[in-house]
C-alpha cells in the first residue's frame, strides 16, 4: 500500500460506540475511510450504512470484503479477542475496542497471534489521543513540573446514549462493570503517565452483578518521585470529570468527557514561567469525537508503520493486569447512608 493511499476500514459491531463515536469520527478523515459494516442485526448495519454513505453492510463479519486494510472491532467485550484473532490470522490489521480481552491469558494469546502473523493489533485507548493527556505525559517525563506529589481523578460515565444490547450488564460477557469498561481507559492513562502502581486499594458497589461505582487508591513510584491519589469512577453520581496532578512546580487541572472546557495550570510560584509546551495555547480543544478521529488517524498510519501505533496491544497488558488485581482484591463500597448491609449472595 502506498503512503498516500486511503486506508479502507470495516467496522464490526454497530452498537452505540460505532454509531456515536467511530462513524462520526471517520467522516472527516482524509487518511481512512469506512467502507463496510457488519452486525448480526442487519437492520442496524443497514441504517448506519445508509446514514454514512457506506456501500457494504453484512450480518456476518466473515462476509466482509477480503481487501480491507483494517477492521475496528466494537463488539461485546467477550468477543474482542476471538474475533480479533480471526482477522489477525488473515493478516488484517485490527483496532479492537477496550478491553483487549477479559483475562490476561486471553490477551496474551491474541497478542501472540498478532506477532506470529506480523499484523498490527491496536487497542482503543482514546485517552492517549487526548492532547492534554499527551501534554501531561511530556511534562512528567521531561520533569518540567518538578517532582510529583499527588493526583486525583473523578469521572461520571453514565450511559446517556441508547444501548443496542444489554451485554454490558452481563458479567460473563462484559468481564465487569465500570472498572472493566471505563477503568480500562483511566487506568491505562495513569499507568501511561506514571508507570506501574506500587500500591492498590480497590472497592466497588457490586452486589453480585457488575459494579456501577468504584474507587481506587493508587500509589506510583517513578523517577519523578512518589505520587499517590484517588480515582472515583461512577455511572450514578454527578462527578466533575476532572483530573488534577500536583507537582512541586505546577498543578495541572483539566476536564474530560463532559467537562472538556476546563484546563488550568497553577504554578506553585506565580512568577515561575510555565514552559511553552505546557501553555494553554499549545493544547487545542478536542471533542470526544476528536479523540476517536485522532485514534483512527493513528491506526491508519500504524497499518503502514506498526511501530507508530499509539496503543499497541502489548502496551495495555499492565492495565488489564491491574484490573484483574482490583477484582481479586476488591472490597465492598458501602454507600454512606446505608446502615445495614444486606446479606447478598455473590455470583462468580
Amino acid at each position, binding site marked *: 500500500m502506498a503512503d498516500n493511499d486511503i486506508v479502507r476500514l470495516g467496522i464490526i459491531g454497530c452498537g452505540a460506540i460505532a454509531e456515536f463515536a467511530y462513524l462520526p469520527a471517520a467522516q472527516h478523515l482524509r487518511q481512512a475511510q469506512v467502507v463496510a459494516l457488519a452486525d448480526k442485526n442487519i437492520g442496524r448495519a443497514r441504517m448506519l450504512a445508509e446514514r454514512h454513505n457506506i456501500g457494504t453492510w453484512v450480518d456476518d463479519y466473515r462476509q466482509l470484503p477480503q481487501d480491507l486494510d483494517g477492521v475496528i472491532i466494537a463488539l461485546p467485550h467477550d468477543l474482542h479477542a476471538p474475533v480479533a484473532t480471526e482477522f489477525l490470522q488473515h493478516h488484517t490489521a485490527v483496532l479492537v475496542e477496550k478491553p483487549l480481552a477479559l483475562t490476561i491469558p486471553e490477551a496474551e494469546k491474541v497478542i501472540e497471534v498478532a506477532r506470529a502473523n506480523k499484523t498490527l493489533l491496536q487497542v482503543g485507548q482514546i485517552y492517549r489521543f487526548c492532547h492534554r493527556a499527551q501534554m501531561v505525559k511530556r511534562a512528567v517525563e521531561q520533569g518540567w513540573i518538578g517532582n510529583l506529589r499527588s493526583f486525583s481523578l473523578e469521572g461520571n460515565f453514565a*450511559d446517556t446514549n441508547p444501548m*443496542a444490547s444489554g451485554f454490558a*450488564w452481563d458479567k460473563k460477557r462484559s468481564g465487569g*462493570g465500570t472498572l472493566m469498561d471505563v477503568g480500562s481507559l483511566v487506568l491505562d492513562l495513569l499507568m501511561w503517565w506514571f508507570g506501574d502502581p506500587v500500591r492498590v486499594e480497590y472497592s466497588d458497589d457490586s452486589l*453480585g452483578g457488575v459494579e456501577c461505582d468504584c474507587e481506587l487508591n493508587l500509589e506510583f513510584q517513578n523517577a519523578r518521585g512518589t505520587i499517590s491519589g484517588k480515582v472515583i469512577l461512577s455511572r*450514578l453520581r*454527578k462527578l466533575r470529570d476532572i483530573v488534577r496532578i500536583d507537582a512541586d512546580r505546577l498543578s495541572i487541572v483539566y476536564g474530560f468527557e463532559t467537562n472538556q472546557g476546563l484546563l488550568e495550570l497553577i504554578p506553585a510560584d506565580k512568577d515561575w514561567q510555565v514552559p511553552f509546551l505546557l501553555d494553554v495555547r499549545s493544547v487545542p480543544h478536542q471533542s470526544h469525537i476528536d479523540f476517536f478521529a485522532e485514534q483512527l488517524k493513528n491506526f491508519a498510519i500504524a497499518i503502514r508503520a506498526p511501530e507508530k501505533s499509539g496503543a499497541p496491544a502489548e502496551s495495555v497488558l499492565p492495565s488489564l493486569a491491574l484490573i484483574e488485581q482490583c477484582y481479586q482484591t476488591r472490597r465492598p463500597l458501602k*454507600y454512606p*447512608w446505608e446502615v445495614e448491609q444486606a*446479606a447478598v449472595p455473590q455470583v462468580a
Partner: protein
Amino acid sequence: MNPQRVLITGATGFVGCRLAEVLVGKGIDVTGMVRSWHKAARLARLPIRMVQGDLLNPGSVREAMRNCDTVFHCALDSSSDGAAHRQAMVEGTTNVMAAALAENVKKIVYLSSTAVYGFWPTATHVTEETPIPYTGSAYCDGKIDCENVALKYHREHGLPVTILRPTMVYGPFETFWAAHLVRCLGRNWMTLVNGGAGICNSLYIDNLISAMIRAAEQESAVGQVFIISDAQTVTWKQMVERHAEVVKGCRLPLPDATAEEIAAARADVERGNNPSSLRAAFRLLRKPETRSALRTVPMLATAEKVARSVVDRMPDDVLQLVKRAAKSANGNKPSVENGVTAPAKAPVIPLSDHDVRLFTCNVTFSIEKARKLLGYEPRIDFAEGIRRTAEWIRWMRL
C-alpha cells in the same frame, strides 16, 4: 405466600430498583423488566435476571413473567404525555394483568398512587373509602383506569391483585423531585409558601418497600386497596429546609411568601413585567469586580466606551426614560425615606400554581387499613429518612 420468583416491571426506576435490592437481600430470585438498557446501571449491580421488554408488547411481558410466582408492577410509561400517556399506562397494565392470568401468577402488587384522589383532594382526611374522581389529569386519571383494570381482572378472573397507593415517596435515588428541588435551592429560587405549614405526606422509600413485600405475602391483601404513607406528619417547611441544609450556596432561612404574593408575582411574569432576569443582570453589572473583569475582554472594553459615548450624546428626555427603566428594573432595592434605609425585601419567587397548591395542601392520608390488614408499620421515621436522603444528595453531588 412468600414470593420465590419475582418479576418487577419498571425495575430500573426509583421504586423498582430499590425493591430489587431488598428482595435480592432476602434471597429471592428476581427478574427485572427493562425497557432501556442504558438506564440499568444501578440495577445491574444485583445478581438478577434482566430481560428487555416493553409493556405495550404483550409477548415480551409474558416472556418476562414466565415461571414467576409474584409480580410487582411498578412501571410507568414516561415516553408520552397527555391522552397518549394515559392510554399507554392502561394498555401496559392490561398487558401485565393478562400475562399474569395466562402465566398463573400467584400474586400481583400494583403500585398505584394517591394521585387517584387528584393532586389536590377536596377531603381533608383521605381513606381508601374516599371517592376517586376523574380530574382531567392524564396521570391521575390513568392511575384510576389502571386500578380499575387490575380490580376487573380480580373480580372477573380471580387474579390475586393488591393495589397500593403510596403518597410522596422520597429517599436515595429519587432523582426527579429531589433533583428539581435541589436545583431550585442551589439557585435560591425556592420559597416557603404560607410559612411552609402545608403537609407533604412523605413516604420514605424503604417503608414503601416493606409495605409492598407485605402486600405480596398477605393472603388477606388480595383484592384490596391500601394507602401507604409514613406515620409522621411532616410539613413542607421541614422537608424543604432539610434539603436546603445540604445544598451548597442555598441561603437560609428560606424566604417565605403568601400564596397571594406568589400569585401576584406569577401574574407579573405572565404579563411579561417581571424584570427578575434583567434585574439580576443589572445587579451583576453594578458590581465593580464584574465590571473590571469584563474590561479585560478587549471587545467588551471597546463596547463599554461606545456605550458611554452613546449615553453622553443622548438627549436629556431619552436619558431620563432610560434611567426610569433601569430604576424599575432594579426592583426591590432598599428605599430611602427621611435618610433611613429600609431593609430590602427579597423578591417573591413566582412558583407555579401547581407548586403553590402542593405546598399549601393540608390533606392527610390514613394508613390504618394497611396497619390492620398488612401489619404495615413505617419503620424509618422522618429524621432517619431525611438523614439518609441528605447523605445521598451529598454523595450524588446533586
